[in-house]
């Protein structure tokens, strides 16, 4: 039997890779992917919990997380396209119109 902690370690690892990607990549698309990674990490840990706790709540939350992720992706890309039309850059570190 695979102990619960391993799953948690795995999800923590993937989560932190997502955080790393979010904090360091310049391309917005990749940043989006890092966010998806983080959400998937949480999904893994949730499914693991619901398996070990013999309770379905975790998986229901996973379903909702996936729907929200989809919605987020939709809106995220809408914003990127709107931004792209005005400033045709995709790199996050060039978006510093407002500072101070």
């Amino acid at each position, binding site marked *: 039997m695979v102990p619960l902690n391993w799953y948690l370690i795995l999800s923590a690892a993937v989560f932190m890779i997502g955080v790393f990607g979010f904090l360091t990549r310049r391309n917005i698309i990749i940043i989006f992917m890092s966010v998806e990674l983080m959400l998937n990490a949480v999904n893994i840990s949730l499914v693991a919990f619901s398996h070990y706790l013999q309770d379905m709540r975790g998986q229901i939350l996973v379903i909702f997380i996936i729907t929200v992720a989809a919605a987020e992706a939709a809106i995220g890309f809408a914003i990127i396209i709107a931004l792209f039309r005005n400033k045709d850059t995709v790199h*996050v*570190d060039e*978006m510093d*119109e407002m*500072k*101070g």
Partner: protein
Amino acid sequence: MNNYLLIPFLPLAAFLINILFGRKYLKENSHWVSILAVAGSWIVTVITLLDVLSGKIINEDLYSWIVSGEFKASVGFLIDQLTVVMLIVVTTCSALIHIYSIGYMRGDKGYYRFFAYLSLFTFCMLMLVMANNFLQLYFGWEGVGLCSYFLIGYYFDKKSASDAGKKAFIVNRFGDFGFGLGIIMIFLTFGTAYYAPVFSQAKNFAAQTVNFLGYDVHLMTLIALLLFCGSIGKSAQMPLHVWLPDAMEGPTPVSALIHAATMVTAGVFLVARCSPIFSLSETALTVVALTGAITALFAATIALVQKDIKRIIAYSTISQLGYMFLAAGVGAYGAGVFHLYTHSFFKALLFLCAGSVMHAMSGELDIQKMGGLKKYMPITYWTMLFASLSIAGMPGFAGFFSKDEILWLAYSGQSPVGKFVWVIGALVAFLTAFYSFRLIFLTFHGKFRGTHEQEHHLHESPKTMTVPLILLCIGAVASGWVGIPHLLGGGAHFMEFLKPVLGHSEANATHTEEWMVMAISTIAGFSGIGLAALFYLVKTDIPVRLAQKFNTVYKTLWNKYYVDELYSFIIVRPAIWTAKNILIGITDARIIEAVVNGVPKGLGEFSRILRKVQTGLVQRYAAIMALGLLIIVAYMLWR
């Protein structure tokens, strides 16, 4: 109706009428209001004199002025022998000087203002004299100080006049500082500020010492000396005498009234009034005597070399006041007051004569530019001569009786400094005679040294000025007769009259010594006059040669021992310097402002730094968020 109330309130009414309606309605004839008021007071004073003579002492309150807890001060009047004497002096001199001023001040722009101030002064002086508690005394005290400020600075468009007025008031304030503390000490020890209870209980506090600012001091001495501070300031004794010579900037009647007859004598009156306290402390009396003597000598020496006619008389006043304090210092309060009484007549006369001389010489004050005025101004000459004789102490004249009484009681009294003080007194008598007659000979004898145009204008003063001169001359001569000592067969009525208030000092010495003292003072007088005649009538070159030979001495005397410069160097200039540089420069500007402006500037600076953290990069925001989370978790887990 107790009519003594009229004495002070008539002049007050005159002041109000003049000041309110003077400018528009009364203008030239505003003097009538003041003169009527002062004359009224004079009449009521005479009536009260008769009452007091018949033994009726009045001591009652008009209304309670300040009431705060157990501290109570009221506007109250005490009419006893001492008060009546002072009332006579004040009202008589004031009335005569009012009349004199009509002629002297004719045509002056602020005519009504002058008479208003004179009436206000008379009111304050009377309130001072008639007070029955220390607070009202203080009220009168500062009131006369204020009027002297107004009157000295009467010609306010002249810088020197307004400076002199300000100087007078501030120097007086120095004196009043001590005086105020004295009153507070009296209240704290006796629990009341009224004369009657204070003087009666004074005896049982005689031996007590008190802790004043950390030092254990004999109580009575402390109170006496604090009160004496006030009189030094008011009566222009060392070291607070500097304001009197400058006070000559005011019109001459003012000098006559305030700086000769009345205000400056307030200091002596205070010491006399508080004689029960002063007599309880040996050290206080010696201090008073020594101060009086030193000031007398100091002022007399300066008067020797002065050129300005009014300055000479001013220094002579300081010197004579020194005499009065000398008398009080040796316990002879009665003699002091008697000298005050006589001095007020002949000193006022001297000033008024000087005024009429100045009037004739169209404002010229330097006696070296005068001479030979005898034939042009006979009345002024004769009255001034009598006054000088009286001040020099020539037998038969008022000065002789009062000065001799003082010297005799100094010599014979049991005060430890009596003998030493008597010697100085005699020396001063000689100097007084010398400079008085130097003045007479330089102004009236010899040939005219002024400009031709002045000579053309020389004329005797109008009747309104000469009549007061004559009346005062009578006073100057006759006023002494009321106090002729037993030795010369007189009844010494004056001292007897004041005995119930001031007590009397028994003289434990033989008659022969009394004759010897009288002889010495007369000889001093005659030799002074003779020397003056020699120097200024016969060999006029001696003074010039003497001046060159003892040039340094001459210069110190001429510059009044550099006292004025000393004061401004010690007190005035450092105060302004500290204000400018230290207070504004450093504390206000650098320390407090630095903090007050520093904090917002610092915040602004810090705010600009913090703003830089907000670089606009999303990932920096996210990094800071994650970092924040990291720190919080670390803090939580390993606390």
